[in-house]
């Protein structure tokens, strides 16, 4: 692989390599212990079989360990939100209601006040 230079890094910093439509599953030890792997698998499978244009990816721990598995969802036209306590059933609801239907799912949004 080509070795990088300082210019390459600065160019990469301008890129937002994440797509605008995504489902991020918190997959650190805490999330996986709470069942995040199953949730990730179901998202990945359903997005593929239903041919939905959304990027399913994994990420680290956001810190809301009491609410694991935690999933962040962003789709066009809606602000990004975080869902907690995501079981397989909730995952399917998120896909149907939020990603396809553009309506947030009740009772599972966890909003964390964070300054970055």
């Amino acid at each position, binding site marked *: *692989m*080509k*070795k*990088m*230079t*300082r210019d390459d*890094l*600065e160019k*990469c*910093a301008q*890129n*937002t*390599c*994440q797509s605008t439509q995504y489902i*991020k599953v*918190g997959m*650190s*030890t*805490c999330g*996986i212990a709470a069942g995040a792997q199953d949730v990730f698998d179901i998202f990945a499978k359903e997005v593929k079989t239903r041919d939905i244009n959304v990027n399913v*990816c*994994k*990420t*680290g*721990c*956001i*810190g*809301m*360990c*009491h*609410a694991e598995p*935690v999933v*962040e969802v962003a789709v066009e*036209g*809606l*602000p990004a*939100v975080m869902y*907690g*306590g995501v079981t397989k059933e909730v995952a399917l609801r998120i896909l149907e209601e939020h990603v396809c239907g*553009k*309506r*947030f*799912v*009740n*009772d*599972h*949004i*966890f*909003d*964390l*006040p*964070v*300054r*970055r």
Partner: protein
Amino acid sequence: MEKKVILIKDTGFKSDTTRDIQSLFLKAIRDIGAEESIQIVRAADLGIYNQGVVVKILPDNTVYTHINSDNIDQIVKAVHKGEVLENLLLKDRVEQTRIVLRNCGVIDPENIEEYFSKGGYTSIAKCLFDLTPAKVIKEMKKSGLRGRGGAGFPTWMKWSFAANSFGDEKYVICNADEGDPGAYMDRSVLEGDPHSVIEGMTIAGYAIGAKHGYFYIRAEYPLAIERVENALKQAYERGLLGKNILGSDFSFDLEIRLGAGAFVCGEETALIASIEGKRGTPNPRPPYPTDSGLWKKPSIINNVETLANISAIFQKGGDWFSSIGTEKSKGTKVFAVTGKVKNSGLVEIAMGTSIKDIVYNIGGGVLNEKQLVAVQTGGPSGGVIPKKHLDTPVSYEHLQELGSIMGSGGMIVMDEDDCMVDISKFYLKFCVDESCGKCAPCRIGGYQMLSILNKISEGEGELEDMDKLHRISQAMQKASLCALGQTAPNPVISTLRYFEDEYKQHIIDKKCRAGKCSKLIQYTINPDKCKRCRLCVTNCPVSAITGDREHGYTIDQEKCIRCGRCFEVCKFEAIARV
């Protein structure tokens, strides 16, 4: 146009009215015909507690509290027009400030490109091409960053000692041993943002003139190890580690060493011995590792969280970093908040935030609306902070004044069901188990203190035992070889300081308020309250409850192991604990 979303949540303690309020909102939205542009959703948690009905409007992020049915039309209209209602607005919101966890839960830790998109590795580029090692250390001094591994030693000073030490080889070591019970911040950083630690170590290597570095990670963290390995591979492939990093003259190699999970191996001299392949026991200091460390060469040992701060400091500047926090404690601290708290998890706050804000505003308060008694920080080397000192701001100095320490970041919330004698016994037992046995004060002192505590918790204690505990503590603090033994008595000293009455209760009255010390309690069944439902009989793990529906039930005190199961399951409060 982006849709507006109104999140609602009843944050009061009493009955949850979220659904009723939602229908009122729905009606108000329908009345102005805005169903298409405004959605109303019930949230599970808005990170705001005890403020009545709360609504948060996305994407504007305005928050209104203490809403009642009279405000609803007004709010819906304001949202529709894009206006803000000043009188309902929540001011002074307690927020987390994220520096260390800036990328955790945001980027894919297994994809270096995502770290690049957050400005990753631009800090090391800046150091290599724009700054001399001396200037790097100067910037660190400006930032005021202090070690997050426990002792709070200024990071720049450690680096400058090592930079000024003479040696043909020098080493950078990342301490990811994390042995405190209840703490897992370092694991989360390694799992969620491994490149930030790699970049921090590389900058440290450049600053002190090291060519090699080691990650010392406990083997119990397999996922962290896997993600660090993967990150190292990606960094090597792109020339961000190895020979001539980014085409500069600087070369730096990183390797992983696994620890077997002994608490004492987190101590720096024991950690060095362990990397060298020797038995992990501490050695006297001086010489300090910055003079003679790994393989007798100058070495620096920094904590994971310390290292994760460094690339942020060089991205935004030392002045920016030192603008956050208190006079002597700069930046943020990550805590793993656990115990009897509603929202257990990782919390990163600016130094100076009060413990009360962490527990009540970020943590959501105590579980089951019980009374908070104390908060423990610093793990087995720390102490308890009683309720009356909860307003104390978090900083190295303030916590030390109270007889606790910042430690690596465990924070355990304790309520009325926690017994302070039991707590100090727990931590001391941990240190006795983990003591390496090399020096007598720790090996013998710890054991003796633990036997005294056991005696007290069994109702066999005498008043003079409290003096004895103090005396042995002093000996351990003064004469132990390493900080494990020196700090092991801290939980005992601090509970004695704030909860002397509770110790006396155990010693004189032979009572345990919290019902934790099994030798001091007894469960009995009150026949007047008992409805003969047999729930306790079926739940007792040792079949100690006998009787029949006609004559009622009794607990055989000989058989009873005092687990409290019957006490918990009885629906009629018929089981008494005395």
